[in-house]
């Protein structure tokens, strides 16, 4: 496999050995008359940190659900390491771990039991489950709560349990659906650091998020999807460059309007002509996102 499609950051490290870990071909998912995912094609390389961005209802969670076989596609297919992923594909599923948007755990189990259940589902020996659980729970600061049932944990703690649970099995691919939703700023930064560390160990990470700065900070490449269709796909820097690296915001009767420029001098000239209500700044991935989706997002 060539290096076409690999992110710039990864090229040096990959040294022409990029391989496609995940390939999505013509993926379609319909719920009755509603098409949630509409002919999505993606290639995600081994060890890549890949972001799926889109407004509410864009089809991000549906895509992740199909990648974890919870939902089956209406048409199209997903390949993991070149092999079709379906509910029977044990060897492909063994590589996958998912952190869903919802707290998908037995609420009446203790943290220890949740971890043991996960380990057993992946055929891990009991000794290994206990040893790794202890390490992960210690790392997440959950050791003292291990006998507490999930129902009695705070939202942030539940999220941490889900992270520990997904890492217990040493996955090659980590699918994250809004992993930092509901987390405070400090916990979110800790999560970012953890994800970076995991990605440095060549774990392939697919992330959906509403926090655009999260995608910009973490992802090698991002796919912008809207109404189930792929709108743009590139590195965050390339997407910003494509829109124009410099932005001038104008406050008008219509609200905040931004104009984008490739050339700094051109932007400054526009700013000086626009009057005192205008302001200058660097373009962010959120600008790309808003332009692409056509509406302001959180």
């Amino acid at each position, binding site marked *: 496999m060539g290096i076409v499609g690999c992110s710039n950051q990864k090229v040096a490290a990959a040294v022409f050995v990029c391989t496609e870990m995940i390939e999505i071909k013509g993926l379609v998912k319909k719920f009755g008359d509603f098409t949630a995912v509409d002919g999505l094609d993606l290639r995600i390389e081994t060890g890549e940190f890949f972001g799926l961005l889109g407004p509410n209802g864009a089809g991000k969670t549906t895509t992740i659900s199909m990648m974890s076989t*919870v939902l*089956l596609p209406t048409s199209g297919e997903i390949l993991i390491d070149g092999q079709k992923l379906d509910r029977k594909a044990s060897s492909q599923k*063994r590589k996958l771990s998912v952190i869903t948007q919802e707290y*998908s755990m*037995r609420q009446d189990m203790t943290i220890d039991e949740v971890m043991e259940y996960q380990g057993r589902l*992946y055929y891990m020996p009991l000794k290994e489950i206990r040893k790794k659980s202890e390490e992960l729970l210690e790392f997440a600061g959950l050791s003292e709560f291990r006998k507490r049932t999930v129902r009695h944990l705070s939202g942030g703690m539940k999220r941490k349990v889900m992270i520990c649970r997904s890492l217990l099995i040493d996955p090659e691919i980590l699918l994250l659906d809004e992993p930092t939703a509901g987390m405070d700023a400090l916990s979110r930064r800790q999560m970012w650091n953890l994800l970076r560390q995991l990605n440095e160990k060549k774990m392939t990470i697919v992330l959906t998020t509403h926090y655009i700065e999260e995608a910009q900070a973490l992802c090698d490449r991002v796919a912008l999807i809207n109404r189930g269709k792929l709108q743009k796909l590139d590195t965050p820097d390339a997407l910003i460059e494509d829109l124009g690296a410099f932005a001038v915001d104008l406050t008008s009767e219509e609200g905040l309007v931004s104009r984008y420029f490739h050339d700094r001098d051109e932007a400054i000239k526009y700013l000086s002509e626009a009057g005192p209500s205008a302001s200058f700044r660097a373009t962010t991935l959120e600008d790309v996102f808003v332009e692409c989706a056509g509406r302001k997002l959180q």
Partner: protein
Amino acid sequence: MRRQEAAVDKENFGMGIVTVLWEKWVEFRRDFYKITVAAMISPLMYLIIFGMGIQTTSHGEPYLHFLVPGVVAMATMHGSFSAIVQNMSTQRLYEKALDQVMVSPTPLWQFIMGQIIGGSLRGLYAGAIILLLTAPIRTDLVFNGLSVFIMFLNGMVFSTIALVLSFMAKSYADPPKFTSYIITPMSFLCNTFFSTEQMPSGFRQAVSILPLSQSCAMIRSIANGEPAGIFGFIVLAAYLAVFGTIAVVFIYKKKNL
């Protein structure tokens, strides 16, 4: 790759079933008192009201002799059905805990099998409680290994039906409806409190072919020292095969589980 998968599955053959049984054990251990009391209350009421309160006879024998095998079979049905239908619907619709299983490499047929066996064991436990409670009463009824096997088979059938229904449930309100529409009528009509022979023709044949009718008849025959016959086993096996197949097809093929 498929060969590699087969080798891994062979190496861990049955581990998925053990995992589900472990999960069921965790649940049983935690809710032991609730499960035990719930399994006792209704059958005990029926035994007290119909068997002891309303003193009557059936076929020249005390009515209690007729009632006990029926109540044992009914308790098995209730125990198995309720152990699966509520739990699985909650896991699928509310907790989304089924997602954890779906994404794991555990073969889904083993998950189904584990649920069926686990549910059946819960039914067996409920039936055993009734047997223990009625043990001090002198009835001369016979309960042997074959009775236990029939109770287990009956539990498997109703666990499987519960599993299929819980995969079909669209909201949290559905499981109680399933109980009202399916389990409650069966509890009263299927050879538990009175013989299906007394029903009008047509209706009698329809009720007789239901799994609980057959389980009651077989357990009652054994209790009276008569052979259980083969027909009941065939009927139960047929239900198990049909609903088991539907459950497996659902979990592998249902697009929006």
